[in-house]
C-alpha cells in the first residue's frame, strides 16, 4: 500500500464509520463530477504500479474481505488474482442490472460514476489489462459517457475506458452473458468450462466485477482494508447498497453497513406504508421471509441464513398484508420463465411448467403440490447458469412462507384485497 501513503497524507478520506461511502452525502440527483469526486475522496494513483505494488493491492483487497456485490458474493481478491495470473487480460465493469426490481447499480452509476470508473481502471491496472469495458443500463448510459469523457479530457487514465449499453434482459447480467454480449452481441450465458477468468472476451482472461464491487475497490485502494472493515460484520465487512421497495413510504436505494437490522434498514425507506406480512430478500433469485421472523435479524447473508435467505444483490421488497404472496410469486416466476435464455432444456421447459403450475395454485384451480415439488427437484441446478436455481429457490420459499394461503386458495378464497401488483415485472414480450 506504499503507493497510497502520500495520497493518504494529503487526503485523510471520509471517516471510516460514516455512511454513505459510495453515494454522495447530499440528496441531489446529479452525478458527482471529477472535481467534486477528487475533492471528496482524494486522488487515486493507479497508473504505473509495479508488480509488487499490484500484488500488495490484491493482498489489501483480500484483507478487506470485499465480496462481490452482484449477488453471488464471491471474494473479490480471488477473482483479481485469478485473472492477474493470465496473459493479456481484460476488465469488465458489470452494470447490467437486468433485475426489474433492483436499482442500486443504476443509482450508483447515476450519482457516483467516477468512483465506478476509478474501480474499473484500478482493477485493470492490478491485473495488467489495457482496457476496461463498462457495461451499463441504458438509463444511465449518457451519464457514464460524460464521466468517461471528463477523465479522458483530464488525461486521468492509462487504461482505455469503453462504455457499452447492456442488453435489457434478466439473464444478461450473468458474467458469461455479459462477455457474450460484448463480444458477439448475444446476451446469453455460455457453457462452463471454460471459466471467463481463463478464457472470456476474445479468448482473453476476463475479470467481470459488479460496478458496486469496483466502487468499493477504489475506496480500499485509497484508504486500506481496516478503513473498509470499520463497518459491516467480521464475515461480511463493509457497506452495501440496498434497493427498498414495495409497501414502504419512500422506496429508495440507500447504503447500509452490512449487518444492520432488517427493521432499521426498512426505516431508511420511511418505514412500512401499510401493515406488512412478508419480505422478499436478495432479489428475484432470493427468498421470501416472514416479516416477524426477519425483522430483528441482521441484513447479511450470515444473519439471514437461519431463514434460508441471503443478502443477494441487496433487494428488500415489502409485501403488505392485503396482497397475495402466491399471486406475486406466480407473476414473477412467469416472468423469469419467459426470461430464460432458452438454451438449456430443463430451464426452457421446466421453468415454464413450474410457472404454469404455480399460477394454477395461485388461482386455486389445483391444490396438489406434488407435481410442482417434483419439477422443482428436477430443474434445480440443471442449467448452464443459475437462472433455474434462482427461480426454484424463490418458489420454494414462497411455498414455505405462504403455506397458509395455499390452504385458503384450495378452499376458494384469498386474503388479498388489493389488485395492484407489488413486485415490478416488465410487460410480457412475445416469445
Amino acid at each position, binding site marked *: 500500500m506504499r503507493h497510497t501513503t502520500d495520497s493518504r497524507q494529503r487526503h485523510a478520506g471520509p471517516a471510516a464509520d460514516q455512511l454513505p461511502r459510495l453515494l454522495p452525502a447530499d440528496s441531489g440527483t446529479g452525478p458527482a463530477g471529477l472535481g467534486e469526486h477528487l475533492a471528496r475522496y482524494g486522488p487515486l494513483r493507479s497508473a504505473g504500479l509495479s508488480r509488487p505494488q499490484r500484488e500488495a493491492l490484491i493482498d489489501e483487497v483480500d484483507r478487506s474481505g470485499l465480496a462481490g456485490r452482484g449477488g453471488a458474493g464471491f471474494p473479490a481478491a480471488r477473482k483479481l488474482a485469478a485473472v492477474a495470473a493470465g496473459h493479456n487480460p481484460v476488465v469488465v465493469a458489470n452494470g447490467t442490472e437486468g433485475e426489474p426490481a433492483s436499482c442500486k447499480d443504476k443509482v450508483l452509476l447515476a450519482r457516483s460514476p467516477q468512483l465506478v470508473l476509478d474501480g474499473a481502471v484500478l482493477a485493470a491496472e492490478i491485473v495488467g489489462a489495457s482496457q476496461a469495458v463498462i457495461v451499463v443500463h441504458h438509463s444511465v448510459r449518457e451519464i457514464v459517457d460524460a464521466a468517461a469523457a471528463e477523465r479522458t479530457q483530464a488525461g486521468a487514465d492509462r487504461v482505455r475506458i469503453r462504455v457499452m449499453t447492456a442488453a435489457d434482459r434478466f439473464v444478461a447480467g450473468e458474467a458469461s452473458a455479459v462477455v457474450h454480449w460484448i463480444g458477439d452481441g448475444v446476451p446469453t450465458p455460455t457453457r462452463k468450462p471454460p471459466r471467463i477468468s481463463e478464457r472470456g472476451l476474445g479468448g482473453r482472461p476476463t475479470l467481470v466485477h459488479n460496478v458496486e464491487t469496483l466502487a468499493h475497490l477504489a475506496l480500499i485502494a485509497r484508504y486500506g482494508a481496516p478503513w473498509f472493515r470499520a463497518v459491516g460484520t467480521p464475515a461480511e465487512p463493509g457497506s452495501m447498497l440496498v434497493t427498498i421497495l414495495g409497501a414502504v413510504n419512500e422506496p429508495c436505494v440507500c447504503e447500509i453497513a452490512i449487518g444492520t437490522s432488517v427493521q432499521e434498514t426498512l426505516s431508511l425507506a420511511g418505514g412500512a406504508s401499510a401493515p406488512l406480512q412478508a419480505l422478499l430478500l436478495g432479489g428475484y433469485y432470493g427468498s421470501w421471509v416472514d416479516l416477524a421472523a426477519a425483522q430483528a435479524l441482521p441484513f447479511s447473508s450470515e444473519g439471514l441464513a437461519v431463514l434460508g435467505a441471503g443478502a443477494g444483490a441487496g433487494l428488500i421488497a415489502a409485501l403488505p398484508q392485503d396482497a397475495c404472496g402466491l399471486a406475486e410469486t406466480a407473476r414473477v416466476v412467469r416472468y423469469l420463465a419467459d426470461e430464460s435464455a432458452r438454451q438449456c*432444456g*430443463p430451464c426452457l*421447459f421446466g421453468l415454464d411448467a413450474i410457472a404454469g403450475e404455480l399460477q394454477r395454485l395461485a388461482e386455486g384451480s389445483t391444490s396438489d403440490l406434488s407435481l410442482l415439488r417434483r419439477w422443482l427437484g428436477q430443474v434445480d441446478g440443471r442449467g448452464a447458469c443459475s437462472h433455474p436455481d434462482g427461480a426454484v429457490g424463490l418458489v420454494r420459499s414462497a411455498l414455505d412462507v405462504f403455506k397458509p394461503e395455499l390452504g385458503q386458495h384450495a378452499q376458494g378464497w384469498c386474503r388479498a384485497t388489493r389488485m395492484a401488483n407489488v413486485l415490478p415485472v416488465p410487460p410480457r414480450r412475445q416469445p
Partner: protein
Amino acid sequence: MTAGRRLLVDPIACDGRGLCAEILPELITLDDWGFPIIRDGDVPGQLTAEAREAVRVCPKLALRLERPPKASPRP
C-alpha cells in the same frame, strides 16, 4: 485408468435426444421433458464401457467423461 471419472452434460448443447439414458440407465435418467439427469458421483468401474458408449453416441456431443474438477469453490 478410468477410476474417479464423472459424466458431465453440457446443458446448452444437450437437445434431449435421450440416447445416453438408454445406454446407461444405471446412471442417467430423463426428466419430465426428456433431458438427462446424471446421478451424482464417480462412474463405477464396471460401467465405464457403457459410459464411453453413451458419450460416443450423443448426437450433440453434449456428454463428457471427465476427471472431477480440482477442488474449487467458484460458483
